[in-house]
């Protein structure tokens, strides 16, 4: 078996905390089935490109992308556990290069992020089903959103776990940073309707780009801004991935 696959399989088996994974799935499902319908009574319909959808449908689509950011934190956790448990050095004294190791973490993260999103998506079908419009273009946007979003947040978490060596600090900082990403994004509300300062932050938030791409793909409702979001997300993901690789390469073993 290929070295990357062997390492990825090991990462998936050894470093995944199933309790956290369960929570990562429950969290968006809670929004989709409780929060969305609950707030649907007070929040009116919302525009997605040229379409107008109910708030619960809007939130359901956004909540699926929560698994992208949650899956991303797993990348940092994997690296952090390996360093804490001595497996980082052990693997680097084995038949692997640093590049193979870091790519295997990214690969495992992509699998977790994308698989998680698909599971949530399938569970959310009863709510999402009414608004779905399948097209090749839509599938491309959905796929690109899941892939680039997971890559970006996974890489970000890796860089964070390199810098933050204590478990407590990593957990606190990553939770705080991801809450900022989450609540200033278009997951819960459209950026265009938010007050100006929040709107500015939201338009610069990669989770907004990810969520907008995902929604556009699902509902087949594209805007000119969307192409810009795809390109920007791709570039920023590549840059953050580069930073993660550089940060990783600088990990010193004493």
């Amino acid at each position, binding site marked *: 078996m290929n070295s990357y696959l062997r390492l990825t399989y090991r990462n998936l088996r050894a470093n995944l905390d199933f309790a956290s994974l369960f929570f990562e799935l429950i969290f968006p499902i809670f929004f989709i089935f409780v929060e969305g319908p609950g707030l649907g009574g007070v929040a009116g319909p919302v525009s997605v490109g040229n379409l107008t959808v109910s708030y619960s449908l809007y939130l359901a689509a956004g909540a699926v992308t929560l698994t992208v950011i949650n899956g991303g934190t797993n990348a940092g956790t994997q690296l952090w556990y390996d360093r804490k448990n001595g497996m980082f*050095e052990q693997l680097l004294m084995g*038949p692997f290069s640093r590049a193979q190791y870091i790519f295997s973490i990214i690969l495992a993260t992509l699998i977790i992020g994308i698989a998680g999103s698909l599971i949530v998506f399938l569970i959310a079908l009863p709510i999402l089903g009414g608004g779905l419009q399948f097209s090749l273009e839509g599938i491309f946007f959905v796929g690109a959103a899941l892939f680039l979003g997971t890559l970006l947040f996974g890489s970000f978490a890796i860089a964070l776990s390199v810098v933050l060596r204590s478990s407590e600090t990593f957990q606190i900082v990553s939770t705080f940073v991801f809450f900022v990403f989450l609540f200033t994004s278009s997951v819960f509300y459209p950026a265009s309707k938010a007050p100006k300062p929040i709107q500015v932050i939201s338009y610069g938030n990669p989770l907004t780009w990810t969520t907008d791409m995902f929604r556009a793909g699902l509902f087949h409702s594209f805007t000119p801004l969307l192409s810009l979001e795809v390109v920007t997300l791709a570039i920023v993901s590549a840059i953050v991935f580069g930073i993660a690789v550089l940060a990783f390469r600088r990990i010193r073993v004493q």
Partner: protein
Amino acid sequence: MLLPDPAIYTAELSKRFGGKAAVDSVSFEVRRGEVFGFLGPNGAGKTTTIKMLTTLIPPSSGDASILGFDLHSQAKKIRERIGVVQQQDSFDQGLKVDTSLDIYGLLWDTPQEERRKRISELTERFGMEEYRRKPTVDLSAGQRRRLQVAREFMHDMDLLFLDEPTVGLDPIARRAVLNFFRDKVQKEGLTIFFTTHILEEAEYLCDRVAIINYGKIIQIDSPANLKRRFGSAKAVEFKLLEGTSDELARQIAGLDSVTKIAQDQETGSYRISTIKPEVIIPDLYRLSEKLGLKITSIYISETSLEDAFVSLVNNSTPEVSN
């Protein structure tokens, strides 16, 4: 010019952290099929040397070849042929013992059938059968150490680095582990590079040992030679039927190879400190016979590798000596 023959060859290998040399121009060879001990006090540079030789950290200067591969340019080829048991814990926290062994074997691309066979053999040899279904996070320190050592045998290798592999093991488990290493050397020609603070282990297992202090190797030799050359004087203890004889004590004290003779007031036995007990014993019998005295018991207390180690480390001036 690097020699292809030895399992390990180093020439003036150094590692500096900041301005401080953790390992300072060490040069040595480890022959294939040899168990080579690397002994030194805490902070002497043992683990840093292992980390360099296993390609985990780059040397600051000097050359080395491992199994004929250049340390600087053929790191991956080296890693494919070595095994390492680190001093620190290393385990996959989300796995059970047998799954951990299986996945480690898979990482090394050991075929599935072979993995199954080895898991069964290793759990038995390392006494892990009782807890093979237990998650690694729930193991005691000693159980986890056994797993860490056993796991390394899930793949084939030519050279095994052991950095204090028996820390936390009880004496029974420790002996079983050492015997397992010895079997691997004798039956499969494995080469072992071994560090420990338990010098009886080094004496039991190693063909040769290097003693390192302040990053420099101060001596390399077989344990027997080190004991002979640097061990403290042996003692010959004897008792007389007559109890005491000042005249015998005086005459023994006058012998060339005797450094000291004293009588234990409680037991009444004499203790002669000497580096040549084989010379003293015939003289002792000759003199006692001449004085009409009868020796009722005689005993030689052996010097240990620990004696030699303590003496070398305490008196070491950092000079390379082979």
